[in-house]
């Protein structure tokens, strides 16, 4: 049952008393069950299949995008209800500029209209206190869309509960070239005075901090609808450990069950543990101390699955602590009834 049919059914049933409330109660119950297990922190969506949907249903050119937008709003609601903090969308690729000019113009107009809609009081952005980012080569967009995007970013800059990253005029290749250019501007002097056999001036950390996607950690799950298994120049750099999922449904047909059953059900303890092991090994083997955020995330994951030794190793290796990481470590010891260590850390904190 796709989004369209579901919405139709709901409209029909909402004539009956309390159906809407019933749906939301059932949904909240299911979400509370899912929250018991590991929930991804960051989901990325490739919104593929709008045009095919329009053709299948004999709709006008471009109507598929409108239905796609409605499906997007419901998916975003579900994600934020599940406390998935970061959501990334592949709204428009630089390759899509090669489409028919009419089509491109239609999508741009729709984008502008919807961005302005986001700034309204009753929009999802204000309900969930979402900070919106528009990532990509914004210079390629027309003036109106670019201004609307900048306005939206400025207006939501103070929101801190969740983050929505919309990739427009974005490709990974373009992002990497942009990153090299920014690093060049930053490190001109170092490169000029670089001597052979010394350490190279531009390091991997320098590249990574200039990435458009540096505002969030790497994605945990990438969902591409319409059964395609290709990344299409999206997040190629950031999907090292990202679980790829390709349901056969077209984007306007995506529904809650896809999110629940496959993306989260399949995101099982086994994958979480293995990923923690990889990041763990590569961090500790590499000799580098984990960054605060990664270290804290590792702590949280290891503690959730009872790997106390792993947690304490990560904690010791972290050079730069924060209150968050220390309290995470204290919570770990507390959860696993290791009161002595917890108290020691607490006293040191003061």
């Amino acid at each position, binding site marked *: 049952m796709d989004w369209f049919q579901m919405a139709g059914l709901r409209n029909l049933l909402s004539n009956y008393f309390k159906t809407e409330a019933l749906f939301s109660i059932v949904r909240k119950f299911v979400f509370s069950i*899912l929250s018991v297990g590991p929930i991804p922190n960051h989901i990325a969506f490739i919104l593929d299949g709008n045009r095919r949907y329009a053709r299948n249903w004999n709709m006008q050119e471009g109507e598929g995008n409108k239905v796609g937008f409605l499906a997007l709003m419901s998916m975003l609601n579900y994600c934020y209800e599940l406390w998935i903090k970061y959501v990334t969308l592949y709204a428009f690729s630089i390759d*899509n500029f090669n489409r028919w000019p009419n089509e491109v113009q239609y999508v741009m107009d729709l984008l502008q209209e919807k961005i302005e809609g986001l700034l309204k009081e009753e929009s999802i952005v204000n309900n969930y206190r979402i900070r919106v980012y528009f990532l990509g080569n914004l210079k390629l967009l027309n003036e109106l869309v670019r201004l609307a995007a900048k306005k939206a970013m400025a207006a939501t800059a103070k929101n801190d509960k969740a983050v929505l990253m919309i990739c427009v005029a974005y490709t*990974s290749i373009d992002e990497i*070239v942009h990153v090299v250019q920014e690093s060049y501007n930053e490190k001109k002097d170092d490169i000029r005075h*670089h001597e052979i056999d010394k350490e190279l001036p531009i390091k991997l950390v320098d*590249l990574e901090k200039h990435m458009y996607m540096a505002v969030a950690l790497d994605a945990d799950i990438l969902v591409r609808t319409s059964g395609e298994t290709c990344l299409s120049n999206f997040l190629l750099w950031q*999907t090292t*450990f990202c679980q*790829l999922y390709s349901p056969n449904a077209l984007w306007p047909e995506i529904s809650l069950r896809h999110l629940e059953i496959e993306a989260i059900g399949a995101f099982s303890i086994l*994958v979480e543990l293995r990923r923690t092991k990889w990041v763990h090994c590569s961090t500790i083997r590499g000799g580098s101390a984990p960054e605060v955020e990664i270290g804290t995330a590792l702590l949280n994951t290891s503690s959730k699955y009872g790997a106390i030794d792993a947690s304490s190793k990560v904690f010791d290796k972290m050079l730069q602590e924060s209150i968050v990481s220390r309290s995470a470590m204290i919570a770990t010891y507390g959860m696993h009834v290791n009161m002595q260590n917890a108290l020691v850390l607490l006293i040191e904190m003061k």
Partner: protein
Amino acid sequence: MGDLKTQRETPNNSKIRLKETIHEIEGLFVSVAHFHFVREIWAFLLRLLWNFIHLVISTSHFLLGTANTFQSYLISSGLLRKYKALDLTELQYLAIVVDSEEAHNTSKIVELLHWLSIVGVKNICLYDMDGKDSKANAFLSSMILIAQNFHIFIVLGVLKVSKEIILEELADKSYEKGTCSDQKEMAFEFSSFSDGKEGAAKAANFLCSKYLKDSSLDGVDEEQLFTESKMTEALRAVDCGGPEPNLLLVFGLARCHLGFPAWRMRYTEIVHMGPLKAMKYGAIVKAIYKFTTVRQNYGS
């Protein structure tokens, strides 16, 4: 008289009041305990339901896996006609991503490469996360095994160290066997995590130092200096470039590409094949067949 009465009553009143407060506090504790008890029960119920859902999903995955295994046996036996003759004109370059732990299982890797040679794949890139050095010995021995058993010439791309040794071994073998007319030629490339992100950093350094040392480029707009094609050339210059694979097969438990070089993965179809030890010939044929039916429009 009144004072005595109040004096006598006050200790009794205070005792009663004390008892009342104790009762109240006990009542509060009981309600908190009940509330806590209810919360515990609720949490237990949720955990139970989560485990039940997890069990249902695991069972359905298991059943799906069994069905796929059955299908792959059918394909291997040659009963399904559409998988018999595969059109490999679209498949110019195939990449295999292997989980580092499974990469040590060289016999499985050799078997996989043998199957791919039967299917008819000519160019393969083998990728795993660990560095090349740890793999060098494992793959060296597996390459020699292939060369001996299946009369295939192998040209190693990236493993420069082992290249000379391999060619020496092969040269000896070819003199022994004379010139075989139906020798299949397969090209292999070895890649690892350091070719991806760190390779990009090396290319960035190469490109930037090249521009700064070339004074004729002063005043040229930076947008024109840093382009896709220049980056591709730079990657090739630092030995981290290579062709873009059309299809990427991931062998491992998780459905991720484990850091395969980003620059080469733009429009690559990524297919998850499961763990290496459970690989089936039929599954590989099915994945390649499915690739041949895909029509890419590259975004336009």
